[in-house]
């Protein structure tokens, strides 16, 4: 599945930014059977990651010769990491840096564009505003991959194919992000505050950057994080847009290594398999760490975003 859109949930009335107060719990009683059932579910979700961690410590030969869910007699995680980073003159490092570049530029750009647009639609009335907003809203349901091939054809004409822009530009437009920010801005930015700033003689740009953007914080972080994940995980778009391995993001790079490992079979070049496995592990560490560290932000953003029907 390729959709990774920022999203939010229903609020009876969208509240101001900030964590929603936790409800006092009546029951302090815990249920052991329910806990055990959920731990079983948790085991399913962690199983592949556990396997990946174990497999990253093995040589390609040990992958075949030892039991998959436990260490072999000669763990070699550091050797594998070193080989992953030095294979093909360090192309893996390129892939990591490319991924960071594409993801960060896209996420910051998309979040700012959505915030400015959402603020504009929420706080100003102008000719055609309703039409323009509905047009964007209708686009929420248009799948991005249906756009990818025609975008490729257009970019080929404009000479943008096989450049970082081919990945960044399409990731900047996030219709759902704009929708989210409009709803968020309507509630989080009080009109009276804007009026007061205007009376004080502040310009519109200054009001937006100094006052509104701060109030839009949690919504902004939500759009930012989810665009970051979507771009980090993007495979289809870079697959069709790029053919220079030095420009690949990590997803396309790993897929190309996996194809090599497959074609190599069990022969001499099959060392690739250990590299694919170790590279996979290395590629998920940054995002998992980011999500765990920023959980307060995205969880409050999800709760406070609010989708009204």
């Amino acid at each position, binding site marked *: 599945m390729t959709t990774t859109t920022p999203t939010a949930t229903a609020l009876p009335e969208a509240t101001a930014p900030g964590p929603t107060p936790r409800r006092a719990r009546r029951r302090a009683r815990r249920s052991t059977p329910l806990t055990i059932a959920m*731990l079983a579910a948790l085991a399913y979700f962690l199983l592949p990651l556990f396997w990946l961690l174990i497999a990253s410590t093995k040589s390609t030969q040990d992958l075949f010769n030892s039991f998959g869910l436990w260490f072999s007699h000669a763990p070699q995680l550091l050797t594998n990491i070193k080989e992953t980073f030095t294979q093909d003159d360090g192309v893996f490092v390129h892939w990591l840096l490319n991924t960071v570049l594409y993801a960060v530029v896209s996420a910051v750009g998309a979040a700012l564009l*959505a915030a400015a*647009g959402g*603020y504009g639609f929420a706080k100003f009335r102008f000719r055609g505003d309703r039409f323009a907003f509905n047009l964007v809203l209708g686009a929420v*349901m248009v799948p991005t991959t249906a*756009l990818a091939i025609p975008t490729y054809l257009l970019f080929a004409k404009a000479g943008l194919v096989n450049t970082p822009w081919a990945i960044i530009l399409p990731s900047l437009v996030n219709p759902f992000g704009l929708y989210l920010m409009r709803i968020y801005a309507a509630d989080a930015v009080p009109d009276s505050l804007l009026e007061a700033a205007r009376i004080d003689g502040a310009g519109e740009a200054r009001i937006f950057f100094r006052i509104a953007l701060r109030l839009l914080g949690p919504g902004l972080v939500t759009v930012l994080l989810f665009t970051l994940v979507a771009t980090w*995980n993007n495979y289809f778009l870079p697959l069709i847009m790029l053919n220079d391995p030095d420009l690949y993001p990590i*997803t*396309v790079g790993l897929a190309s290594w996996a194809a090599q490992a497959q074609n190599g079979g069990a022969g001499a070049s099959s060392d690739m398999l250990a590299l694919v496995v170790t590279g996979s592990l290395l590629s998920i560490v940054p995002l998992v760490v980011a999500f765990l560290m920023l959980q307060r932000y995205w*969880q409050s953003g999800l709760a406070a975003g609010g989708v009204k029907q």
Partner: protein
Amino acid sequence: MTAARRHRAAGPLFVAPFLTLFLLLFLAPLGYAAYLSLFQNRLIGGNVFVGLDNYTQALRDPQLLHGVGRVALFFVIQVPLMLLLALLFALALDSGLLRLARVIRLGIFVPYAVPSVVAALMWGYLYGPDFGPFAQLSRDLGLPAPDFLSDGWMLGSLANIVTWEFVGYNMIILYAALRTIPQELYEAAAMDGAGAWRIAWSVKLPALRPALLLTLLFSVIGSFQLFNEPNLLMKIAPDVISSSYTANLYAYSLAFTGQQVNYAATVSFLLGLVIVIASYAVLLTANRRRTP
């Protein structure tokens, strides 16, 4: 210029950057695909206007119809299962009955941060007959290894990967919605003598409606454009996953292997149309049920 007039002029300026890019990167490709779909590139005569010929061809193209049929089947089986699991997990987390609730919540969500490419690679190796632990275990027990990558299992194996990736994401959306239900509603229900199940059914589920609808809509859009997972499993099971296994794989191979640009644009455009129609069907059904 007065403050009021400056104020009025500022609105369009705030929305202009987004709308400009939206026009160039969203509407223009859509329009270009529609335009391309009306032409054919022929050996003799070059680019020829053919009206709706590409569409009549597409609607009778067995490869496309099978691809769409397969993702529709995938949608009907995988999405209800995934959303049901997400709903049950969210209710369990919200019930306050769990120990280690925080660990469980984050652990189930973690796969969302794993790129689908890595998820497909991992599961592909886990499924595999050579060093997958399932095959290893069955060999040790003297049983035939389950062939997860065979024709009969493949759709289920793909469904498992997608479910693994997205249950946690949907669970978090539903859980966040549950946390916003006002406490007074529970107190009122408890005073009326409602038990935990009754509260889940009569208070929590109705309050989850908008969030559930949202997760359903994103699942429609996601399933119908299924690409990454089959594209990667194709490399380890080329005999099972053909280049037209899903509609999106078909569009991709038409454009980049077959060089049939016009027909690929037609297929992309049709696929987009199918998804928009399916999304509106979901919305309409949901809304009709709400207002009888």
